[in-house]
């Protein structure tokens, strides 16, 4: 997960954005970002893919990514150019999948209250700092447990396993 500062505009959604609307199963015969990204969120917000630019940030309510274990979901979001997802909470498989593929996700309930559609927001995934540039407001996301930070620091789960295998 990158430690640089991310900056983009906010796309805001509600609670329980599920993996079926993030990427419907009809597209899950592929796991390639280039094929998935054009359909990201299309059943929830058909305009999303047309409006989103690289570096933008999704802000949502509770239980983001609930439903299926499909890794296609964070892959589609990352592939669409989204730099980071901030939510009140994440469903657990989505949470793991995002860390594993290197999509920064931050759980920050108060920040969600202070971020509106279209606001420009700055995020430092390393420290969890979130700043609303448009309206002001600074928050800190919940920290990752140390064990998960070591996976993030290794560069993701693939790199983590590579290191473990190499040390055998």
């Amino acid at each position, binding site marked *: 997960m990158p430690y640089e500062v991310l900056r983009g505009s906010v796309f805001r959604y509600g609670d*329980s954005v*599920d993996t*079926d*609307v993030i990427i*419907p*199963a*009809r597209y*899950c*015969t*592929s*796991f390639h970002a280039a094929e998935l990204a054009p359909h990201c969120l299309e*059943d*929830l917000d058909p305009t999303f893919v047309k409006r989103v630019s690289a570096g933008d940030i999704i802000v949502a309510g*509770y*239980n983001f990514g*609930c*439903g*299926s*274990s*499909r*890794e296609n979901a964070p892959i589609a979001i990352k592939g669409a150019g989204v730099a980071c997802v901030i939510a009140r*909470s994440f*469903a*657990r*498989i989505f949470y*793991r*999948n995002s860390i*594993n*593929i290197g999509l920064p996700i931050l759980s920050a309930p108060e920040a969600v209250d202070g971020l509106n559609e279209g606001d420009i927001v700055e995020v430092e995934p390393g420290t969890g700092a979130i700043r609303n540039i448009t309206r002001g407001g600074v928050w800190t996301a919940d920290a990752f*447990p140390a*064990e*998960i930070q070591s*996976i993030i620091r290794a560069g993701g*789960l*693939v790199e*983590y*396993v*590579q290191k*473990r*295998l*190499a040390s055998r």
Partner: protein
Amino acid sequence: MTLAEKILARHAGLASVKAGQIVMAKVDLAFGTDVTTALSVEVFHRMGAEKVFDTHKLALVNDHFVPAKDVQAAALSKAMREFAQEQGITNYFEVGRSGICHSLLPDKGLVFPGDLIVGADSHTCTYGALGAFATGIGSTDLACAWALGELWFRVPESIKVVVEGRFGPNVGAKDLILKLINILTVDGALYQALEFTGSSIRNMSMDGRITVCNMAIEAGAKTGLIAPDETTWDFIRGVNPARLISNPASLDLDSDPDAVYSQVVHIDLDSLTPLVAEPYLPSNVRPIKEVTGIKVDQVVIGSCTNGRLEDFQVAAAIMQDRPVHPGVRLLLIPATPQILIALIESGLAARFVKAGATLSPPTCGPCIGGHMGVLAKGEVGLFTTNRNFRGRNGHPESKVYLSGPQVAAATAVKGVIADPNEI
């Protein structure tokens, strides 16, 4: 410790663990399906791994888009098939001998009480019905488990669900779990384990327990768990006598009297009526009385939630050979070849088809909107599956109501959502 903590502690090689702790734990089974495995294979190779940790501890199951629904789906299965051959995976399940993973793997004897199981499918929590700690993961985690034989887990808090009382007529396991999801909401058990106890759980069949634990994730739970008892050991005796042990108590698979729970929920079955979850969330649960009369285009009885023999027997008892309503398509999808055979040999299959239903080979099919009964724009379905999210079962403007096989059978006959006690 709770049952969940005990299983994780044992697999992490620790004397005890506490909720919230993160552990590396060894897995007993790490499986994937035709939708998730191809990506795991790619990641496995990208990790630089060459051999899986144990060729007997993987299972590769053709279930979601099979028999292959299109060229891309065929390629996914092909990648899984080739990996199984390359690695010498003993538990590779090919179409014709395969079924929906969460029904197939317990029946194949691959789930044992106290096991730690991961699967690249969110309903992996189902195996808690047999007293295994089982949870869904993504494809990258699965590749990691294949390479290392272990994975990190956050030890979950447990919610104790105490179920007492008796099911009324035409009320069953699905109604119980819908009720619980309604109480907890879709994230009320997030990151936690649901531990089901109480006399009604003890009296419940394995098929019923599978339905209950299957939908733990619909409340956000990491797993659903039922401590093993005679019903569990009878089931194991049938499917895996070789692994049976003489002294099950030595496995220590009961929560301790001083185990800590985050919450205790009581459910009384005596007051439960048939329930239906309205679109677009499994927690939008209503008593049947409030939804009767809604016109339905398609009824599906199947999936990892309600595709077992008992579910079809219940449906047949309610239909009593009455014809399927002319405005309804009734799709029956047995979860495994064994269940399909039982339907054929018992004569149930012929009775359903004569009534106007159609019988599909074992597959996930319409449960995931893949094939074999996808809904058109504006259509309404009543499914015995577990999720009714927008667009899951077809067009984003289609709608799916969820119920048990009782309401589904009554609805198929009436053409509108119907109370099985009033047809």
